């Protein structure tokens, strides 16, 4: 067609963008870090070895915990009708309205030496337990990460279960297979792609998570070691090698998952509408699933509750609830010199990131799904890469590029002004959500509707404007909302790339506030509450727009 060359030109621009801001930083880091002396230093140094082992352990334990929480919940949701089922999707997303490292602030009030749990224990005459010291820190990091990440696996599983044709299970039942056997032989194998999609994100995410261990002071973790090494990068380039090692293991985890679970389950999905196979338990039993959902939601909401209580408290020490309530922390949060600028900064970075992510994401989806260009699938694959490549790697790569290339240091200098760097970093990290959301919309919209518009005289551009984009509008909005709201609360890029107080985004400001002795953590909590409310509104809007389909955007 006559527009093909324009489509190819746009695709080339998108691939060039991904090459410059996704592949180049990875190559920059690998270029420096792939040095045998540095790698030998990583594996011979006890501290780095321990950091790696701890990161592995956190990833493994967190992922297991996530499975233990998400799997039963997803099965309950799929198999039963219960009171409050319509609300359960929204409730499950509660953990996502708070970055885990902010949740850690609240958690310290619960598990601290003079926190809620220890106060309860001492009331019962049991000696206090040091939850946040020694091995306690490890378990706290795992628990808070699991409580934050389980919705990703849950949403994937619910979507995968919803797509399974109930007739497949009925056929097995018809042939005499019992419940457990049907689950083992039919349901579970067909769920593998969904398990992989959610599980691999959780595994890679928890392996590379920076904010939570940093907040708990759990420093013997690779991500924190890399972060702490930034300051002395000139004299000690080992963090580059650490990044290479982290990238290698993250990619290995992702590929092993893909190999073991990622094969597409052919012909297992329902085309068109399938009747729900959910049953309604009789009598009091119908409240059982509701109770399980409520308990998990309460547990997952504990850091939020603690954060809110801390934000409102003047003093919370050796009591179950805060002793004095106040609005002072909110006032202090808003009047602190780094707070208001950080909100403005975050808004600027995130709006810029959203604009880039939506533009690039829509073009990639169109190229791969609609225009079916050669190279479209490559762009789609590249756009998914940030899910397997830790954010810390990309951020570190930008840092390396700004040092390495003169032209880059002029426009992309984190010390001078990280606006472009942070905006693009956020956009690249959130690109997978936009691409998956828009691609899902395009795949569900028959191409014939666009052909019809062309047939009735609309040009390619008018067709895009009047037919294609309005038809995938909900998906587009959801992708944009995710790009925007997750950018507002992004952690690793923000901690690494925002180096001057005047350029701090919200998350970096919360981190800095939490480090101030005395009232610092209280003010940080108050600021965290503002952030939480903001993200909650964004996710509720996304949930309202997409309903059950929201899980489809957390897929690889």
């Amino acid at each position, binding site marked *: 067609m006559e527009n093909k060359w324009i489509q190819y030109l746009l695709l080339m621009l998108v691939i060039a963008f991904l090459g410059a801001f996704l592949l180049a930083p990875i190559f920059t880091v690998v270029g420096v870090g792939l040095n045998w002396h540095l790698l030998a230093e990583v594996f011979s140094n006890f501290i780095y070895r321990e950091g790696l082992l701890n990161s592995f352990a956190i990833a493994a334990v967190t992922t297991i915990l996530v499975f233990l929480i998400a799997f039963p919940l997803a099965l309950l949701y799929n198999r039963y009708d219960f009171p409050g089922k319509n609300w359960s999707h929204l409730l499950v997303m509660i953990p996502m309205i708070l970055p885990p490292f902010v949740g850690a602030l609240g958690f310290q009030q619960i598990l601290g030496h003079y926190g809620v749990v220890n106060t309860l224990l001492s009331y019962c005459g049991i000696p206090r337990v040091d939850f946040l010291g020694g091995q306690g820190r490890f378990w706290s990091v795992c628990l808070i990460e699991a409580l934050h990440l389980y919705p990703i696996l849950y949403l994937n599983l619910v979507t995968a279960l919803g797509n399974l044709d109930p007739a497949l299970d009925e056929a097995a039942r018809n042939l005499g297979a019992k419940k457990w056997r049907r689950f083992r032989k039919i349901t579970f194998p067909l769920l593998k792609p969904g398990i992989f999609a959610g599980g691999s994100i959780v595994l890679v995410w928890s392996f590379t998570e920076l904010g939570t261990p940093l907040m708990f002071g759990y420093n013997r973790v690779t991500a924190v070691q890399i972060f702490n090494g930034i300051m002395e990068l000139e004299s000690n380039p080992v963090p580059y090698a650490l990044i290479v090692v982290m990238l290698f293991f993250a990619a290995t985890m992702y590929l092993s998952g893909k190999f073991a679970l990622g094969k597409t389950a052919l012909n297992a999905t329902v085309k068109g509408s399938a009747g729900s196979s959910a049953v309604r338990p009789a009598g009091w039993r119908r409240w059982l699933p509701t109770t399980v959902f409520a308990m998990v939601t309460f547990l997952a909401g504990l850091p939020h509750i603690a954060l809110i209580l801390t934000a409102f408290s003047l003093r919370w020490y050796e009591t179950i609830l805060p002793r004095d309530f106040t609005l002072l922390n909110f006032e202090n949060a808003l009047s602190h010199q780094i707070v208001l600028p950080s909100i403005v900064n975050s808004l600027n970075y995130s709006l810029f990131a959203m604009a880039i992510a939506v533009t690039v994401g829509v073009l990639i989806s169109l190229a791969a799904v609609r225009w079916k260009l050669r190279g479209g699938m490559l762009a789609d694959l590249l756009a998914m890469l940030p899910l397997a490549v830790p954010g810390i790697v990309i951020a570190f790569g930008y840092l390396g590029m700004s040092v390495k290339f003169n032209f880059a240091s002029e426009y992309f200098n984190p010390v001078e002004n990280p606006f472009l760097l942070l905006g693009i970093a956020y956009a690249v990290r959130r690109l997978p959500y936009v691409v998956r959301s828009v691609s899902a919309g395009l795949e569900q919209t028959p191409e014939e509707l666009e*052909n*019809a518009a*062309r047939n009735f*005289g609309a040009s390619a551009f008018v067709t895009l404007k*009047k037919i294609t984009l309005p038809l995938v509008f909900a998906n587009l909005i959801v992708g944009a909302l995710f790009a925007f709201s997750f950018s507002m609360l992004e952690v690793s890029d923000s901690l690494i790339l925002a180096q001057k107080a005047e350029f701090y985004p919200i998350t970096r400001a919360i981190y800095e506030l939490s480090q101030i002795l005395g009232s610092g953590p209280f003010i940080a909590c108050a600021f965290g509450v503002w952030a939480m409310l903001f993200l909650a509104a964004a996710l509720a809007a996304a949930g309202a727009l997409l309903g059950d389909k929201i899980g489809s955007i957390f897929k690889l």
Partner: protein
Amino acid sequence: MTRVEISGITKSYQPGVPVLKPLNLSVKPGELFFLLGPSGCGKSTLLRILAGLVEPDSGSIRFNDVEITKLPPEKRRAAMVFQNYALWPHLSVYENVAFGLRVSGEKKSEIDREVKAALELVHMSEYASRRIPSLSGGQQQRVALARALAVKPALLLLDEPLSNLDARLRDTMRREIRRICVERKLTAIYVTHDRQEALSMADRLAVMDQGVICQIDTPEKAYNAPTDKFVASFLGDANFIEGELKPDGVWQTALGNLSCDGMTGKLAGKLVAMIRPERIRIGVESKMNAVNAVLTNRSFTGESCEWEFEASGRKLVVVESAPPERKIGETYLLYLPPEALIVLQ
């Protein structure tokens, strides 16, 4: 009214697997022309090439002597009724029908007049404000037709538009579409695999198989005098009789020596002829073309009865309307009129 000339059109989606082999076709102005063939024969591809939605590998298309092969779809004025209607679910019935007129920059009052007229024509005026998902299949089909008619197309393309409707509605819609095309003097090309649809509606039809046109004719001629075995069997049930035409003019077949009108002037050699089941007569005595056959099966379809006979190891199917009682296993005399035996290529 538009005359359509298609010459040398070819198309392959995979190298070495042609969907359309060099294909020539001429559609007269104001004609309701049918492309008829089994699934995968290339008829829909040809229609999409005419609409500009698929690019041909070679060949040319002319509308009234104007070359349009390279013209983008939006500039061809070849409005299409899609198989699944392709109605935009985010727009109302009125907006769907008005879309083409809006895009072409018509005045608001003109758009309103045309949309109302088009909806009136398909008896959908009262549904103008309705959303597409709230309509039944038949109503959606009418809106799709109204949308195509509203833009006053140079050429109307219909891609199996009735395939999703039930049998009764299909009958009604056949008559409606034909009425509208005749009333508006539209040149229309209609793709279908339903022979009843093609035979009952077409001015002329082209039977396609494996990317080539086997025969172009009026429905009557194509049915009564098919040129080859494929067309004969695709347009209706047929009995095929093979034999050897001797130099002395005798046609030796497994059923005995037969005679048919079309064999006059043919060279000696193998000769295949076909006869429609309704043309064979049972129990009619004749000195020639009479065959003794045993009745092996019957199937009653309501308006007629289909008898299966066996003669010299060959099966012959005969259709009779209002037949008398006959017994399975008995032998009957079948008469094959020479003028009803059509020699095939």
